[in-house]
């Protein structure tokens, strides 16, 4: 029986990698079954199950909350989302991040010039270096 390499990865970790007989997933346009020598394809995935059929006929199931399925002549890869994503959830997260910045800015009224801060940083680093050198010399 012919087989095809399948990689399932998420941003956090590698979920599955190995030779499989078939891959099943829920694409945006409907159920998909990918057998070896499937035509090259890229599709977005709907939240649901990704099932791989191993060469010995056993099945393994993984849940994805979205992602991309890519089929190349010798490779199927699934880039899975593990977190639940929706436009409004993302939007809420963005608003929260913006509010955090506003909160930070509220309690600092002094805005320094980049050049000025840069000079101060250089001074601090030079002091660190000088200390390290001094210590080395003392040990000798």
């Amino acid at each position, binding site marked *: 029986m012919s087989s095809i390499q399948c990689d399932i990865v998420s941003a956090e970790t590698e979920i599955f990698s190995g030779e499989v007989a078939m891959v099943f997933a829920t694409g945006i346009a409907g159920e998909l079954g990918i057998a070896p020598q499937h035509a090259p394809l890229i599709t977005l995935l709907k939240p649901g199950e990704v099932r791989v059929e191993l060469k010995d006929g056993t099945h393994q199931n993984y849940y994805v909350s979205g992602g991309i399925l890519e089929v190349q*002549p010798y490779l199927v890869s699934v880039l899975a989302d593990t977190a639940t994503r929706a436009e409004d959830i993302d939007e809420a997260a963005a608003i929260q991040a913006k509010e955090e*910045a506003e909160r930070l800015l509220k309690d600092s009224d002094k805005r320094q010039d980049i050049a000025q801060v840069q000079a101060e940083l250089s001074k601090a680093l030079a002091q660190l270096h000088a200390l390290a050198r001094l210590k080395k010399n003392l040990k000798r």
Partner: protein
Amino acid sequence: MAVGSEIVTKIKSVQSTKKVTSALEMVSASKIKKAKDQMLEARPYARQMQKIIGHMAHSSPEYRHPFMKEREIKRVGYVVISTDRGLCGGLNTNLFKKSLAHMREYQDGNIEIDVVTVGNKASNFFKKIAVDLKASIPSLGDNPDLTDLIGVVKVMLDAFGDEKIDRLYLVFNDFVNSITQKPEVQQMLPLKPDKDKQIRDNFDYIYEPEAKEVLEYILGRYVEALVFQGVLENLASEHAARMVAMKNATDNATDLIKDLQLIYNKARQAAITQEISEIVSGAAAV
């Protein structure tokens, strides 16, 4: 005994400092392993995306996403990743210095700068600087999750999509190895095409839905993955830097205790000698 009681107090205080620094060193030593593993595990995702994007760029040249087009620069954005806590040597200082030098080049050319920050140190640093702080995530802890980053990344992606910024950089500490960490400024958008990678396979994909939507989705996720990767690199760097810094501090404390002990012993010896000579001369006088 009253002799050198100040010195004894001082020794005790240095000793307790030493306990703290060596404990911090050990904590970081145990965390660095996990941080490194996490960093390596997250790599395949970004690499896979890079491959797909590279392939799509080659196989469907009729469509160019805005994220892939260079345009005239009027405003640039930075995502700056720092540690949450200090006591890690010059790690953050070096990073800020590098990012400021980078930003200054733009500012000297009258180009405005937007910044979003990840991590306490960067937030507290950039709120005091004359740049536009657009969004911020206070702290991610030791187990960063991609979900926590969605907000800041979206702010910048939207800004780029709306042409409010024309270039996006990622600033983080690159984990080279346990001894070396390099502050890095990496261009995320527009995507730089890989010149050295020649993709020769001449197949085009079937797209479901349209190529445009798929690409849009992938590019957004790709930027998120890059930022996440940066966060993990930075976390591993933090632990490595803290380990070295705390080891130095512990060594310094040991040296200091040794010196103080010597001074104390000498003082005690001198006091005893003096007492004896006083007794002897007192006895002689009788």
